[in-house]
């Protein structure tokens, strides 16, 4: 796909047309670089004027909570895309984790012989994230050891994980995850329902995940190696980077994030159903792309991805809030995605031509 990817090196698109040198171009470039922010701001002003509530702190908080889920998914996916891969299975992984934890809380762990064991909420959450991690790891192994294209490997996993999610309850819902004191498994609602300092815990979690991801991608060797693998795998190999390890790692990270997102959803609903987060993978990938992550790998930032998630979320909620037919949502969303990528290409071209003039 990379041939026509946003990251296409300008060289292959022939000599860039000469432009009048200087500030105008630079200004345009600046605008393009910050396009996600620009779009977000425009959205907020637009909807803000259309509906009084839109910018009310209470609504902003609610919208941010909705964003949190997709943002966490998208952050995980970003790691994968940065290496030049793709992860279509995150939605299903979220669903699987949701059902696993739902089961653990609702009906516990049937022990061989005597009775059933109920884990504490902390343990349950840990279990869920672990499951996501393992499923992601399997994706990674398929991609590296068995040389299956990421698209296929994770497409297969999309079906498999969803299937297991449904099998966990034969398609049913785990209705009540409140738990009971005597079972010592109360408090699952905390992560999805409760607030701390007036901000939903889910949002705090997103902030933590984002912060961690930012540090990892920008301040650690691992993060840099992720970019290197995506930028030029052969060069990475020659530079002594363990390419396969890096790849497996990013899929595991993506799986873990997906699971976490699934748990937040579940906690918010107070019930676990097998279709949790169906097709969320598309939203997550969309957010990453909107944020400027290139599917060809090597380019992109966590901050961008989070902004992308905000654009998608604030757009959707805004349209609902002002009572625009919800059907326009998908139209607008699709248009915005494509538009964002087109501007990304524009940016690349502009940068290239500026570089050329600089030389």
């Amino acid at each position, binding site marked *: 796909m990379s041939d026509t990817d946003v990251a296409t090196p300008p060289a292959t698109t022939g000599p860039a047309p000469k432009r009048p040198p200087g500030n105008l171009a630079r200004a345009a470039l600046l605008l393009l670089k910050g396009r996600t922010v620009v779009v977000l701001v425009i959205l907020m002003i637009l909807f803000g004027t259309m*509906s009084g*509530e839109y910018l*009310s702190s*209470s*609504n902003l908080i*609610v919208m941010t*909570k*909705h964003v949190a889920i997709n943002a966490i998914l998208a952050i995980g996916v970003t790691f994968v895309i940065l290496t030049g891969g793709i992860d279509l299975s995150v939605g299903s992984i979220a669903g699987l984790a949701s059902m696993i934890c739902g089961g653990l809380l609702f009906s516990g762990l049937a022990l061989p012989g005597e009775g059933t064991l109920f884990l504490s909420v902390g343990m349950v959450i840990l279990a869920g994230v672990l499951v996501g991690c393992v499923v992601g790891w399997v994706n990674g192994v398929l991609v590296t050891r068995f040389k299956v294209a990421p698209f296929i490997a994770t497409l297969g996993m999309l079906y498999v994980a969803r299937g297991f999610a449904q099998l966990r309850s034969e*398609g*049913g*819902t*785990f*209705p*009540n995850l409140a738990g009971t004191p005597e079972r010592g498994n109360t408090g699952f*609602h905390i992560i999805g*329902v409760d607030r701390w300092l007036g901000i939903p815990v889910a949002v705090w979690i997103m902030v933590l995940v984002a912060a961690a991801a930012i540090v990892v991608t920008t301040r650690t060797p691992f993060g840099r190696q992720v970019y290197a693998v995506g930028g030029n795998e052969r060069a990475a190999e020659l530079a002594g980077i363990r390419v396969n390890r890096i790849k497996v790692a990013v899929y595991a990270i993506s799986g873990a994030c997906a699971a976490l997102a699934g748990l937040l*959803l579940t906690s*918010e*609903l*107070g*019930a676990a*159903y097998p*279709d*949790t*987060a*169906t097709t969320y993978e598309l939203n997550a990938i969309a957010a990453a792309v909107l944020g400027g992550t290139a599917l060809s790998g090597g380019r992109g930032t966590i901050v961008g991805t989070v902004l992308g998630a905000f654009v998608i979320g604030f757009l959707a*909620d805004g349209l*609902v*809030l002002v*009572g625009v037919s*919800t059907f326009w949502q998908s139209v607008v969303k699709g248009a915005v995605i494509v538009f964002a990528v087109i501007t990304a290409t524009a940016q690349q071209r502009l940068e290239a031509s500026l570089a050329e003039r600089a030389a």
Partner: protein
Amino acid sequence: SDSEGSDGSDAGASEAKSNLIVIITPSPDNVFFKAEQVAADAKAKELGYETLVISHDDDPTKQSQAIDTAISRKAGAIILDNAGADATETAVQRAKDAGVPSFLIDREINSTGIAVAQIVSNNAQGAALGGQLFAEEMEGKGQYAELLGKETDTNAGVRSKGYHDVLDQFPDLEMVAQQTANWDQAEALSKTQTILQANPKIKGIIAGNDTMALGAQAALDAAGRDDVIVVGFDGSPDVVESIKSEKIKATVLQPASQIAEMAVEQADSYIRTGQASQPEKQSVDCILVNAENADSVDNFAVTS
């Protein structure tokens, strides 16, 4: 439940009177829900309210976010046809805590005291009617199949039970297949096709709702089987048409529009008085629709 009502009222009263009613239903691609939306919307406007119509497509997450929106908009009331009993309660509770009362229609939830009203059609009574007629059409014997609705929807269970309370009394009626088609027309189509393969001798299909009945009928048409009895549930215009053209045998009409209007009226009085005018659990009887009275049916109501 009165005490519950007044609880809500304190919360409700503490707010400035809101002029917005939020109507949340499953996807309008099922006329039944379209009818609910239209009726509720019209009634609310008639009573001078601003409305916001959202469909959750039977996705509890979407529903939860829609309810968040209602809360943000400080809605006076929510009219809700929910996305599954179990995955709904938390969200409705959240609305209540925020002082936004919910009026459930069509589908119940398992606990009381969270919603101000739960207005549903009498599914048990309706199912009895449908089952009875199905048994008669089958002449009390032969193989039949049942298409179940969404497991997460209490109506699915209630109707199935209602059907069997009648049908199981006929020893010669044999159910050879029972599959869920999740209220979905396309799914009913393919499920019926496979059922027909496994059981060619089938004489009748009883469906939990009309969209599934239509799907089943489509499968029968494709297989060239005009000898199979189909009975549905809802009384939707499309099925009524099909009955007139002697395809589907019968359906059980739910007063969808009426129920929606009732909910809006009660919401209105609650907003004004802060009091629940009716007990929480309410049910409206259903009417059997077949060749006899099909002509007098219009938009989920019998205009005799």
